[in-house]
């Protein structure tokens, strides 16, 4: 699409510059630029500039007089919702709809009184809570201070993962509350599972059509055309086959852990990434599990299924998710069986307890007979989602390589050994020289601060991954800011991930402080938060000196305990009440100085 003043938010001069530049860019350069814009907009600098200064520069005659302004708000943890929100905004602007995109963290609650059309793209954290950048807005909206929204029209696009109990809950929270506060719903809420691209694109089209009608702007023929800024060359649906250069189990014999350090070649892909980004790995299912499932189903492994006309066995190995159960999936399965126990299970409000530690094979083995055929069975399964892993390298240090640090998930449940799909695929199947299908997932909300800012990294277990990337970057770029890492694992001798690298960084000053906690080496379990508590005074000093705090790793326990500790430290060291300390932490979060990449 050639940019014009009419189809873009840019003025004549900008359009000319862009049209001169864009066609000359290589795919890799475009990709870089895309990432750059996405990343820098984490602080909303670029995007806001475009909105603040670009939009008013539009020639007056092209701007419809009675147009309503669209505010696109995003609640995003890993960046998916943010990327979608930005993409949507560009598309709207391309249609001359006045639109701005704002992070919920930056959105001032009292401007709710002034907004007109609000489009929300919201993801949900694991236990149904809003992403970090939306906590404040969510809370405000549900407080008594929330204003009437009679003047507002809205729509919500909810991102989620059906394998979690509180699927798309945050999106629903916003949808419900806007409704309660009197806002007019433009479109019913749309829920997206991990494979969100298609439903999101459809919602984009629908919403644009509604807005276009509402503002009497003729629907241009390019209404559904994607914009030039969309996507990267390699995605979940079009991953890059990266060769495995190195694969190391970082744990020693005797450890309870199995952590794979994987070095992949990106040579020739043009893929770029920044510290803090994630790598998507498109996994394959365990072959033994697939064979067991086919046997249990009594199906023909070679039967051709799906439009792609692949064999059932190949489809189950490569394309479909069979290790995770969700309520929607159980409901679909229920249509094919009359087993009363199973019907009772599906009828429950929460299936959380049932789905935990069970997979499709468990259901097939226990609740038959089923009336499905191969094709019907395949049609109820969702596409196997890519698994995201924090990248543990910096390109400034490793060039055309990407490293990830993957904890192998394996446990026994209901009498059978269970495997994390991607982690065991990588740990057990992949060898040096093989390829892994990957794509980069930008995480604009988890980036290093300015090079001179102090940074505190809290990353036990595989949570250390992004911090290895950060430290590589800081070492390579000669960053002057201090860095402090808190690391924890079970045993010093077997589980001290990247020990020699960390020691070297400590020796050469890349790392200012390093505190470690090994929970199972002592009678009393010691975790990173205990080490933080020991260093309370210095930590508080760092925070007062403007330190950025990063947390990566387990969400359920670690991240919560760390946050609680942070609040305690701030309260004790700063002579604050607990409420004030909580507010202080919230403020850090709003300022983008308390950042989390938790899972």
């Amino acid at each position, binding site marked *: 699409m050639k940019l014009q003043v009419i189809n873009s938010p840019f003025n004549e001069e900008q359009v000319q510059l862009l049209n001169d530049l864009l066609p000359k860019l290589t795919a890799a350069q475009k990709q870089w630029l895309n990432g750059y814009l996405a990343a820098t907009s984490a602080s909303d600098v670029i995007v806001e500039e475009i909105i603040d200064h670009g939009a008013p520069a539009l020639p007056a005659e092209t701007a419809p007089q009675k147009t309503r302004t669209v505010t696109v708000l995003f609640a995003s943890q890993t960046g998916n919702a943010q990327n979608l929100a930005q993409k949507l905004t560009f598309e709207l602007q391309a249609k001359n709809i006045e639109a701005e995109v704002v992070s919920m963290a930056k959105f001032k609650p009292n401007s709710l009184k002034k907004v007109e059309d609000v489009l929300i793209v919201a993801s949900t954290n694991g236990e149904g809570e809003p992403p970090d950048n939306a906590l404040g807005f969510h809370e405000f909206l549900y407080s008594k201070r929330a204003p009437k929204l009679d003047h507002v029209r809205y729509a919500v696009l909810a991102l989620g993962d059906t394998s979690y109990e509180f699927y798309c809950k945050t999106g629903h929270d916003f949808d419900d509350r806007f409704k309660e506060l009197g806002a007019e719903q433009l479109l019913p809420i749309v829920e997206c599972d991990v494979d969100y691209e298609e439903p999101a694109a459809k919602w984009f089209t629908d919403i644009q059509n509604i807005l276009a009608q509402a503002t009497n702007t003729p629907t241009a023929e390019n209404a559904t055309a994607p914009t030039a800024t969309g996507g990267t060359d390699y995605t979940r649906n079009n991953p890059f086959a990266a060769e495995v250069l190195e694969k*190391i*189990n*970082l*744990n*020693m014999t005797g450890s309870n852990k199995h952590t794979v*350090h994987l070095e992949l070649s990106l040579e020739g892909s043009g893929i770029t990434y920044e510290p803090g980004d994630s790598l998507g790995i498109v996994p394959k299912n365990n072959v033994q599990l697939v064979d067991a499932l086919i046997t249990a189903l009594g199906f023909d492994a070679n039967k051709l299924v799906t439009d792609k006309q692949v064999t059932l066995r190949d489809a189950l190995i490569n394309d479909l998710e069979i290790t995770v159960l969700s309520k929607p999936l159980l409901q679909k399965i229920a249509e094919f069986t009359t087993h009363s126990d199973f019907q009772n299970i599906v009828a429950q409000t929460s299936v959380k307890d049932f789905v935990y530690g069970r997979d499709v094979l468990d259901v097939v083995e226990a609740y038959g007979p089923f009336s499905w055929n191969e094709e019907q069975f395949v049609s109820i399964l969702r596409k196997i989602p890519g698994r995201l892993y924090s990248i543990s390298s910096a390109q400034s240090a490793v060039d055309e390589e990407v490293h990830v640090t993957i904890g192998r998930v394996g446990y026994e449940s209901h009498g059978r050994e269970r495997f994390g799909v991607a982690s065991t695929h990588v740990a057990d199947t992949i060898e040096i020289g093989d390829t892994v299908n990957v794509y980069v997932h930008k995480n604009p909300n988890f980036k290093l601060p300015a090079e001179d800012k102090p940074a505190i990294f809290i990353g036990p277990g595989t949570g250390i991954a992004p911090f290895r990337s950060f430290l590589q970057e800081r070492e390579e770029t000669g960053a002057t800011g201090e860095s402090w890492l808190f690391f924890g694992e079970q045993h*010093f*001798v077997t589980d*001290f*991930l*990247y*020990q*020699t*690298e*960390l*020691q070297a960084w*400590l020796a050469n000053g890349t790392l200012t402080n*390093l*505190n*470690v906690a090994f929970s199972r*080496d002592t009678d009393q379990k010691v975790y990173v938060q205990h080490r933080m508590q020991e260093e309370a005074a210095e930590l508080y000093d760092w925070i007062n000196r403007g330190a950025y705090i990063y947390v990566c790793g387990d969400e359920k326990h670690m991240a919560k305990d760390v946050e609680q500790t942070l609040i305690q430290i701030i309260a004790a060291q700063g002579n604050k009440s607990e409420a004030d300390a909580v507010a202080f932490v919230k403020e850090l979060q709003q300022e983008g100085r308390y950042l989390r990449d938790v899972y």
Partner: protein
Amino acid sequence: MTEKIKIAPQDGSFSDVERIKTESNYLRGTLAESMVEPISSGINDDDNRLMKFHGSYLQDDRDVRAERAKKKLEPAYQFMVRVRTPGGVATPKQWLVMDEMGDKYGNGSLKLTTRQAFQVHGILKWNVKKYMQEINDVLLDCIAACGDVNRNVMCNANPFISSLHKEAYDISAAISEHLLPKTRAYHELWLDGEKVEATPDREMEPIYGELYLPRKFKIGMAIPPLNDVDVYSQDIGLIAIIENNELVGFNVLAGGGMGMNHGDDTTYPQLGRFVGYVPKDKVVDVCEKLLTIQRDHGNRVERKNARFKYTIDRLGIDAVKEELCKRLGYELEELREFSFEHSGDRYGWVQGEDKKWHFTLFIQSGRVKDFDGYPLKTGLREIAKIHTGEFRMTGNQNLVIANVTAQKKKKIEALIAEYNLTAGEHYSALRRSSIACVSFPTCGLAMAEAERYLPSLIEKLEVVVDEAGIRDKEIIIRMSGCPNGCSRAALGEIGFIGKGPGKYNLYLGAAHDGSRLNKMYKENIGEEEILAELTPILQRYAKEREEGEHFGDFVIRAGYVAATTDGTNFHKELQNV
């Protein structure tokens, strides 16, 4: 207050270890901080040097060194702790604690050393202090178990004459006590002892001074006819003189030592030279004065030439005697008569003159752990629980369950049977006469396997001795993983000193009673050649040996090697055929 001990300047500057000692504030260094630093399980080199004086030093599991480096993990650093037990004597209560601590903090086994001490491997840095505290509760310590000081004083473990053993043990313990470093550093660092203000040198270390000795120093005491402590290999060797069933004094040897470096003929094993006879009441004084001669004249520039043996060879034994006389204020007497029969142990039950019983257990390579079908460690623990006598570690890495009453004997016999413990009856005499040092995986100096390899090599040699009909012939066979001499391989009738993985220098011709060093017969050979070389020699020995002729003497008579008449010709005259 006397004046500070000053060491006269020497040609060349003192080695770096001397600097470390000077700066250490009497062995403290920065150990207090290093031992709690949480990012590495190792400590810096300077502190590790000092750690030796506290009976411990840093090692790593070399089996996993490369694997760990690949996994971005530092080496599996761990501390070896050597527990000082003068004369190798431990009470049952002490044994139980050593047993428990080996499991609690160490790698689950105990090593009985060739110097009658306990060695525990695999202790993590953060556990060293706890270890020291827990053994302190049963009056065991590690002071001066390593380092440039007088080490564990060895004493004959002879169970035959109980009253003599008791007296000899008391004297060796007194020597050990007298020559202990006096610094409070050990108590401060490990036992949370009160910090003591540094006092002027003589008071802090009246014998050693702040530089301590130029190198390690070893004292051992033998009671003829047994030379189980290898008395000739000691810096000071004391040979008990028994007259009318009474211990009257000692023939004193000076300047023995086993260590050398490959490819450096200025280093060599050496045997002690006779200095004279001293009545028992003066023996502590004689030891102190000999030690101070080494303190003042030992080479502090080159550590590899720093042992007392080199000092004596440099000064001449007569000059040393003269200096000793000057320091003592009297001359030593003429040597008295004695005779050694052998340097090995006598296994099984014997009854002492006081009617108490003693059982000498064969312990392969001194390794106490539970083996498949041979729960040695458990068995000894059960014995320790009911034993009312004592345990004596021998210089041959074996163990004597000593001073068993006639009443307890049956119970202990039952336990020995229950746990398959053995006096080694079913083993060849060759195996029963074997010593191996620790070597891989924990010893940082190891070049080739020793403890983990010698048993299997002996198994192959046993086929040869069986066929030759000399299964009951005691041939002293020793293996060290490096040339530093922990197994006293230079005193083996068959000696192996590691050169590289799977490769050894083969030495032959030491005297069965420990009075003559061996000589290199073949250099740098692997198992196949070892067997090919030794088989015909053993076969010939079986056929051609004279009445009572030991293997070490036979190989010289048969012309395989020339006799090493002195350490200084250890490297010469490889063969005289």
